[in-house]
């Protein structure tokens, strides 16, 4: 109970600060919208090669995961600002649970992601996406979990590096292979075999496949299972890392 209350206090404070400066929220929401509007039409003539009926039914799930990963990975930047101003230390000297200090922040990131996901899905429908409500709900939940995992990792990275200058290249270094090997923009199946094999080792690819599968109502056991397992595993690992960092002496 106490944990939930502390998490909520931190969540509300973070949300208030975000609403006071919504530039990042707007930029974050605009990015997938631009992808959808400016990149989506390029996919339309290629859908036959992908083996799907509709370009947007293929593309929106990928964009959702991209939004979850990329948007959330930048969450740590605001934490560095808070750390610099002594906010983290002031919170750590209260009796509040360290996990609550992280979970409150993740709550803000996940809510922001949820709103962005709603915008994206609504726009996807407008542009002709064809997805079942049930599949869509599962896909969004997986996206929120993977987004939460990335936000937790980003917060942990922020408190470890304590420098925007270090964090930005690290995020870029991680994100580039994730974007290219997870089939977010184009399906890996159209690539050469070696590239497909390489992408098997990219956990996010399985998450993208699962979200994509749920959108088209294909709940094939192995795809969904691997996607869900990876999502939960990454979420658990990132939460553990984040909490450990908040607990650490020099946080």
């Amino acid at each position: 109970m106490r944990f939930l209350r502390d998490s909520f206090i931190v969540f509300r404070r973070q949300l208030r600060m975000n609403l006071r400066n919504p530039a990042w929220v707007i930029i974050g929401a605009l990015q997938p919208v631009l992808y959808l509007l400016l990149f989506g039409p390029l996919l339309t003539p290629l859908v036959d090669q992908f083996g799907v009926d509709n370009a947007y039914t293929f593309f929106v799930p990928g964009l959702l995961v991209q939004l979850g990963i990329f948007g959330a990975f930048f969450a740590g930047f605001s934490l560095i600002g808070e750390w610099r101003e002594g906010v983290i230390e002031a919170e750590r000297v209260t009796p509040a649970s360290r996990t609550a200090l992280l979970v409150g922040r993740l709550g803000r990131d996940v809510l922001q992601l949820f709103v962005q996901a709603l915008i994206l899905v609504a726009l996807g429908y407008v542009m002709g996406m064809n997805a079942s409500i049930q599949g869509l709900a599962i896909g969004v939940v997986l996206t929120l979990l993977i987004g939460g995992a990335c936000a937790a990792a980003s917060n942990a990275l922020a408190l470890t590096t304590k420098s925007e200058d270090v964090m930005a290249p690290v995020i870029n270094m991680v994100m580039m292979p994730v974007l290219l090997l997870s089939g977010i923009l184009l399906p890996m199946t159209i690539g050469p075999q070696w590239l497909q094999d390489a992408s098997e080792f990219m956990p996010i690819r399985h998450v993208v496949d699962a979200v994509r599968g749920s959108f088209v109502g294909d709940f094939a056991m192995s795809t969904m299972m691997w996607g869900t397992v990876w999502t939960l595993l990454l979420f658990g690992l990132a939460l553990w890392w984040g909490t450990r960092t908040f607990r650490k002496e020099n946080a």
Partner: protein
Amino acid sequence: MIHARGLVKTFQTRQGREKTEVEAVAGVDLDIAEGEVVGFLGPNGAGKTTTLRMLTTLLRPTAGEATVAGYDVVRDAVQVRRSIGYVSQTGGTFSGARAGEEVMDHGMLYGRSRKEVEARGRELFAQLELDGLWNRMPKTMSGGQKRRLDIVMGLIHEPTLVFLDEPTTGLDPQARANLWQHIADLRRRRGATVFLTTHYLDEADALSDRIMIIDRGRIVAADTSENLKAQVAGDLVDLEIVDESQRAIAVEKLGSIAEPPRHGLPGVEVDGTHVRARLQRAGRAIPGLLRDLDRSSIALDSIEVHRPTLDDVFLTLTGRSLRDAEDAAEAAAAAGDPDVPDPAEAPTGDSSAAPAHDETHAYTRTGADQ
């Protein structure tokens, strides 16, 4: 209220590929009674902040043990946190948030209700002269206002033990004097026990019932300001003679009644027309000295008596002045010297020591006939 035995903290620092272990706090024992205001004085890098961070549960001691408000800082960390208020060097409010909301959120993390923390917060704003700033952002506040807001954050849950880390660093003299009043109020109004770290001699002198001097991770003295000063060999008497050729005689006269050199303090010092030495009870010795100088026809431009300062105490105890220690610490930090014992204690504001608080009694003479 605070008891520590053999508190040690070591850090790993890395220079290139080489790892070095630095002992920031090298075995601190301390006992602080309820209602005491204790100043923890030392140069940058002495181990002040590291000690304070161990006592406030932010750092885990490498060795030793400590209890704060009756709770062990490692085993009962949550109970310690409930019992203490902490004002760090960096503050604790986000510059882009509203001051009142920050204070309320902070208070609620102590389990207090929203209504309770709002009433308490507004009361503290009034007491600390922050009226009308409830909805202001800290980034628009002056340094003094911001520091008082930090103190409000530390007091929002009504702790009886308050830790203040370098509370006036970076403030202008007027804001410092104002903040001192508020810190003094903490005990007068609330009976709070206050543990404050400072590298300002005058701050420790003005605010503390008792001063603990820390140098290179060890407490080298702990007593009242007066008792510490009494350990220093006498008052400093500074004679300014008119005729430099008479300097040798002045040195002899002053030297005959001066304290011998010891504990790093020199005997008779000569600097141009100035002759200085330490005398026990200078007030009593000076009339005789003046008569003696008069008989030898030595004309004086001035004579000044300086009461011992805490810098003299530091010099006596460590063989170097507090300001020299600060300079050495800063130079070593700039050069990346691992000897700087406290990585947690990087200066965040004005790191120069304030002028030492000394009581100067000056008598001016224009000739030997007086």
